[in-house]
């Protein structure tokens, strides 16, 4: 039972001041084992805050990040799943499923987490899943006007992952759940 927090596109301090209060009250240290962040934090203080949630933090570089040394893409293995991480501004058209699928094949991962569109999406493509946790602060996006703060928590348990989607809609936190099983014949 490994809990992995996926979030990104906070754009603090440029476009947002902080995470929403309701999100902050839920994100307490001690529960989460890994944090993966798609990018665009943008400053070191946010990095430190995420570090307090969990010492195992993975970040990829977004175009507005002030820390230049984050990698462009990252892959990690959690449980039986291979996760891939990338900000997504490099993949054009932004948010296009087929292009993201190309990146998924390139990184050879089961779950690809990207951001940049500030919209939560979860797609299934062949044997893999492409997840966009959206923007955790609901920061302004040049792509769309309709931005709700959202992030994703994945519960990885052997061959099964349960994706909990937390969205702040009209001041209320709504939680959705998505189930995904890794089919063994596609396991490489």
């Amino acid at each position: 039972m490994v809990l992995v927090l996926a979030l990104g596109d906070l754009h603090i301090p440029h476009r947002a001041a902080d995470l929403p209060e309701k999100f902050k009250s839920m994100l307490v240290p001690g529960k989460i084992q890994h944090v993966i962040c798609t990018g665009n934090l943008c400053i070191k203080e946010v990095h430190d805050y995420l570090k307090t949630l969990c010492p195992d933090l993975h970040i990829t570089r977004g175009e507005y990040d002030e820390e230049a040394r984050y990698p462009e893409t990252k892959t990690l293995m959690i449980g039986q799943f291979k996760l891939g991480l990338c900000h997504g501004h490099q993949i054009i058209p932004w948010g296009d499923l087929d292009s993201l699928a190309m990146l998924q094949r390139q990184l050879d991962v089961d779950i690809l987490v990207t951001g940049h569109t500030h919209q939560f999406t979860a797609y299934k493509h062949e044997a893999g899943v492409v997840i966009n946790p959206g923007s955790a602060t609901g920061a302004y996006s040049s792509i769309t006007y309709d931005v709700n703060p959202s992030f994703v928590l994945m519960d990885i348990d052997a061959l099964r992952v349960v994706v909990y989607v937390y969205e702040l809609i009209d001041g209320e936190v709504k939680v959705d759940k998505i189930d995904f099983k890794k089919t063994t014949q596609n396991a490489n």
Partner: protein
Amino acid sequence: MANKRVPDWLNSSLWSSPGPQQSSVQSPYPSLTPLNDDDATNRSTRSATKSSVATVNAVKAEFPVERPSAPTRHVATRAKQEIRDPLSSSSNNYHSDDDNGSSASSTTTSASAAAVAAAISSAEDISRQAQLCQELSRKIINMGEVRRLASQGIPDGAGIRATVWKLLLGYLPAEKALWPTELAKKRSQYKNFKEELLMNPSEITRMLEKSVILDDEGTTIDDKGALPRSEITQEDHPLSLGKNSIWNQFFQLLSSTVGTLHWITVITNISSNMKDTEIIEQIDRDVKRTHPDLHFFSGDTPFAKSNQDSLRNILIVFAKLNPGIRYVQGMNELLAPLFYVFRNDPNEENAASAEADTFFCFVELLSGFRDHFCQQLDNSVVGIRSTITKLSQFLKEHDEELWRHLEMTTKVNPQFYAFRWITLLLTQEFNFPDSLLIWDTLLSDPEGPLETLLRVCCAMLIIVRRRLLGGDFTSNLKLLQNYPSTNISHLLYVANKLRVKSAG
């Protein structure tokens, strides 16, 4: 009292360690012959001999020994003949400090009363068993009486060992009427522990889901496309702060176990989730290695596997509830006799709930010895080192010559041998049935097993004193680390004598 000379009763040839035995008829300690596979008969042999020994003991003899007129029973391996008579003469000699008298009388009496003593001992056995059964059948059990009877050994006949041990460890209250409620309460408590600690919330949610939705093999969605989302309540997600959320309760339990612990282990507990798997792996390994010679514990039978699973569950629950000491190698050895005895309870209901009962009794047993397992307390007043020092002091009081020879001349540091004796309560030094007998005596001590344990360890040293005095570092260490099998009744008799001596 600093007597440099060893008391004369110790020098009697009767107390010397087993040399090569003559014919079984003549040998005063028949159970020194190699153990047969028939554990049961040997066990009762020893308990019977112990009973005869104990009755002679001036302090303990409270009930008269019956001399049956019935024809003696002939049993092949039992040659308990002369035990009573030589002992009675030598105990008299003890009082009169006459060395030669004991050996002389032993040879004369050993020739006679060959089979009578056999019947006597088993008769005492039966009488004690009857007494124990009678005690147990009372409405309110006299714990002092039970302790006294148990310290002489619990006969295997009526299968009462499990119940007596539960009483001695305080698991069952003295008032018999409360037993059903107590047992039910404790057993359900253990069941809750298991559910909370051995199952994590994701498994629980999965189980709940399965009961609601049928698990579908193939995916009903296309290969490509958005994944279906299902809305869930505020309590069902891992970050929920709701009171009824299983996730919240799971994390509360984790954090509460952190909160109640010793300051030393705060640091080790911060990444408790990571370390959990290491501990579980360690427990797994040790459980598989427990008593590989006993079919009860090892082998491929489903029975053995289920027993191993029970041991594993108990140790994991214990480790999770006690973040202070978690799991230390050796706890499985302490657990094994308890579980064996409880699982073999003739009462079906008790045997089925053996796991729950063993857990609580294990906690009780370990409560006296926790400090031995905590590494940080090693050098403190309550740690293992100070207990070993106590043993050393004890030996010095009773047998200064041996003490001096061991510690000064041959420099055999007691840590080399006593560590295992003390932490594992002698389970590794003797075979399984013997260690059950020793545990009878250890558990019956009202002040806790530690004092008795030290006395038994001291007795173990004294019994092989001749070989120790003649040996150097290597041979002594070898002897003590592979303690030779001895007559358990004799060992316990000597241990008891040490209590008398230091009291007098």
